[in-house]
């Protein structure tokens, strides 16, 4: 078990490393959009230099070779290979030259590993460390998703149990229909319809997420619609899985035994059937959190929720690649650790499964 855990953890870290590295390198290759304002651009490149993505060469007018080069740079500017930016002041010129991508990658990794420095935001919150931006956004998203998680689990279980116990009845059919709708309809469509109906037509709930400085009941009511939209899909999945598992367990021999030894049906169901049908559901629930997180990107966009998903979309639109890297790293870490947790949970939830044991 220990060996298995170690191997899985190591493997997850390898994947994490690959994904983050790949993301960095490919985004570095992508076209760059420095700020248009000259002063800000100087700061931008100075910052890039600090991060080790460009180097600065000082050229002096007095030196003959330098003068030639300066002339050339003035004429062709950024079209010259390797020249990222130049700052021309009478007599001296600072030329910012591109650093090979692997070298950039090395300094980026070093910054993260030694100083936990994920770089600085270039557009969204200029010159604020990416990590700080993230830290200010994560609570909103995580809070929302945890509420959705704890909201959907009991409902999904209950509906699934009802459907399984009353199999092929009208109730079961009704639940199946709901499940079909919940699984099929994309969550942003659900969100749009909910906002339209409860927000605009009926006017019961806010049509947008309120700013954090507005206090009162609206902070509670504002959570309702996004949670409903986020939960619609997981509820349907959980219901379907619970129903399937429980129906299977209900026809099993050990349940017959339980009934034969004199337990009533409810007793048998609660004590034996439910407990056994839970086993395959736990990994699904852990995974569903990842699903919730990535689903909430769209929901945050629709409802103007100031979370990580919204900042991701904005950073993408405005080409703030440092921030994009930070946010995607956050999502990658969460989803990979969920995978790890799922891998390890098989053994914990069901003692019969011994992961990594030799056959």
């Amino acid at each position, binding site marked *: 078990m220990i060996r298995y855990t170690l191997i899985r953890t190591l493997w997850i870290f390898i994947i994490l490393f690959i994904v983050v590295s790949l993301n960095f390198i*490919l985004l570095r290759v992508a076209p760059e959009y420095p700020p248009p304002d000259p002063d800000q651009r100087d700061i931008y490149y100075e910052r890039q230099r600090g991060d080790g993505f460009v180097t600065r060469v000082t050229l002096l007018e007095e030196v003959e070779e330098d003068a030639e080069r300066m002339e050339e740079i003035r004429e062709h500017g950024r079209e010259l290979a390797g020249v990222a930016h130049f700052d021309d002041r009478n007599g001296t010129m600072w030329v910012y030259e591109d650093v090979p991508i692997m070298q950039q990658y090395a300094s980026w990794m070093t910054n993260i590993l030694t100083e936990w420095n994920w770089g600085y935001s270039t557009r969204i919150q200029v010159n604020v460390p990416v990590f700080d931006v993230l830290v200010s956004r994560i609570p909103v998203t995580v809070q929302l998703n945890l509420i959705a998680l704890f909201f959907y689990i009991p409902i999904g279980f209950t509906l699934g149990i009802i459907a399984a116990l009353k199999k092929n009845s009208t109730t079961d059919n009704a639940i199946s229909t709901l499940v079909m*709708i919940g699984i099929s309809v994309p969550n942003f469509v659900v969100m*749009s319809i909910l906002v339209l109906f409860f927000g605009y037509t009926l006017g019961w709930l806010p049509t947008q997420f309120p700013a954090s400085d507005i206090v009162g009941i609206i902070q509670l009511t504002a959570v309702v619609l996004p949670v409903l939209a986020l939960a619609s899909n997981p509820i349907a999945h959980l219901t379907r899985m619970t129903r399937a598992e429980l129906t299977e367990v209900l026809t099993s021999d050990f349940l017959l035994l339980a009934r034969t030894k004199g337990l009533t049906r409810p007793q048998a169901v609660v004590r034996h059937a439910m407990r056994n049908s839970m086993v395959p559901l736990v990994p699904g629930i852990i995974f569903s959190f990842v699903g919730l997180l990535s689903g909430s990107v769209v929901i945050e966009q629709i409802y103007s929720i100031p979370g990580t998903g919204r900042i*991701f*979309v904005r950073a993408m639109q405005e080409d703030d690649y440092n921030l994009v890297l930070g946010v*995607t790293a956050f*999502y*990658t870490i969460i*989803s990979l650790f969920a*995978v790890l947790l799922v891998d390890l949970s098989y053994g914990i939830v069901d003692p019969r499964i011994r992961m990594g044991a030799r056959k």
Partner: protein
Amino acid sequence: MSRKKKRQFEQKTEETSTEFSSEDFEFARRDEERIYDKKFETKPVGFFRDAMKRFAKNRYNVYATIILLTLVLLAIFVPAFTTKNITGQEPQLRFLPPRIPVVEHLGIADGTSRVENVRVDPDTVDLEEDFGLPSEDRYRHEYIVEDSVEANYRYCDDIAESCFGGQNVLTHDGEDTFTILEAPEFWVFSDAENPVVEIDIESMSDNPLTELTVFIGDEELGTITEAGTYTFDVDPQTSRLHLEFDAVANEYVSLNSVTLSDDAEEDPLYFYEGYDLAFWSIDGEQSDASYERRDGREMRIDFDFDEYEAAFGQREQSAYSSRDYYALIEEYDEVCEKTVDPDDPERWTFSEGCPVIEVKGQSRPIEWEGEEYYTYHVVLDYAVYQGFDDTPYFLFGTTSNGRDLFAVSWRALRTSLFIGVTASLVNITIGIIYGSIEGYYGGKIDLLLERFAEVMGRIPWLVTLSIASALLGPGVFTLFVILIFSGWIGISGITRTQFYRYKRREYVLASRTLGAKDRRLIFRHILPNGIGTIITTSVLSIPMVIFIESTISYLGFGIGHGVDFNVGPVEFSGVSIGVLLADGQAQMYANPYLTVAPALIIAILMITFNMFGNALRDAFNPSLRGVEE
């Protein structure tokens, strides 16, 4: 068998075995015809017929499949055959609400929209009837649905014509002790019999020294010291009324109205309240007294507005280019019969069916570069002008560009379906090949490929999205890259499992013994056996791809307006259902119908697609043969 019984049985056989000879036996059916292999009376059921049977068993799935097919057919044919505008810009037709035949008589989708909280035109207001109308410029009164106007009031205290009633309050600030409030005009009432001035005071400071003295001309009529309605008889003359307010600082008087009425006339000769009263001038010793309105009511109205009549009814255009006019008349030559007004040769009308109803005049020609330019003042029949015989029906309404949302939605669905199906086909192909290789060869190859697939599958879609759109920019190609990047993994997994299940079967071994090559084994023997599950997974992956496509396009990283693309002769618009929903999102408050139609279409599509997939799964699962629920 108990021992006793066993013994009995043995004894019995010993006894009987000797008693029969071969003659004792005869064929049971000697006299009948010989038995041959009979033909099966039941029909043989092949794999696909069997599948069809199971497919058709669940009624709901069949219905869903029919609906799905209908959607697909609509998506193919509606954009091809629509007569309405789906690509151009028609600003005159923008944001028309849905109008559906038959249903319109039930009061929904009848082409009217509820306009709420509109300021009224003060000239049309009837306070007693609670009635008013909006300004004619924005909402032509003839298109407001009758009896649909509902008035509501809100507080106001500004000096505006739309602010009715309330009081005007004269307050002494600072040092003031004496202020004159004067009517804006001279009162002419020399013909009046028994003229009476009535002054209605809402309230007044309690201080007994506070006085309001009423003068007409130089004549003092009386003094008011507390709230109430006061009447004073006056002599007929021509003069101006003024009120002298004598009070210390911070004292006030609040006036409701001032009336001059007369026995001979029913209506008052002069009447001031609210807005009119606010124009009385104040004048005083130090005169920093304030004179303000208070507690006025402003009327706002809600009403139903017939958008279709407004868009397609008569429309007057005062400067209609003569060139366009002649081109138009030429185009409708057959139906346009000109009747010149006998009184005015500059005006003429046209017969019914002509886009121009009437010409009301002509501008003076302007010469420029040798050519004459002039315009007509015309009245257009806008429905005919737009090429419709009658007021058209836009079943889902129109978009912000004036396009028919019904046709645009199906066009969008066509784009979504095309991208979904194409990307899925690529995914399926890659997935099957990859999974076959993994499953067939197994061992180290399997291990390596499986690890690679795991890494690919573990990359969150946000990472894929960020890389693809940063490197390639938004567009169809980017969208395909994102959809295919990790889309094939599910199918390769299923294929791999199927291969593991079937590759050790005897018939595969037999074929191999006969010298079959890998390719033959894979494609002739193993794959066909596992194809059922693979097909099901593949079909179910299509709605999944459409789901992701619409999400990405909704966020604005996939396709969008202006990203049209062609596949052979077929044109696809860059507006997929996700893009339509994103458009609707921006208009959710003002025009909710823009969200409703695309949302319902994609919801129905996804539901029916999934049900169709489930039906296929049952159909391709032979273990369900003969299972009756």
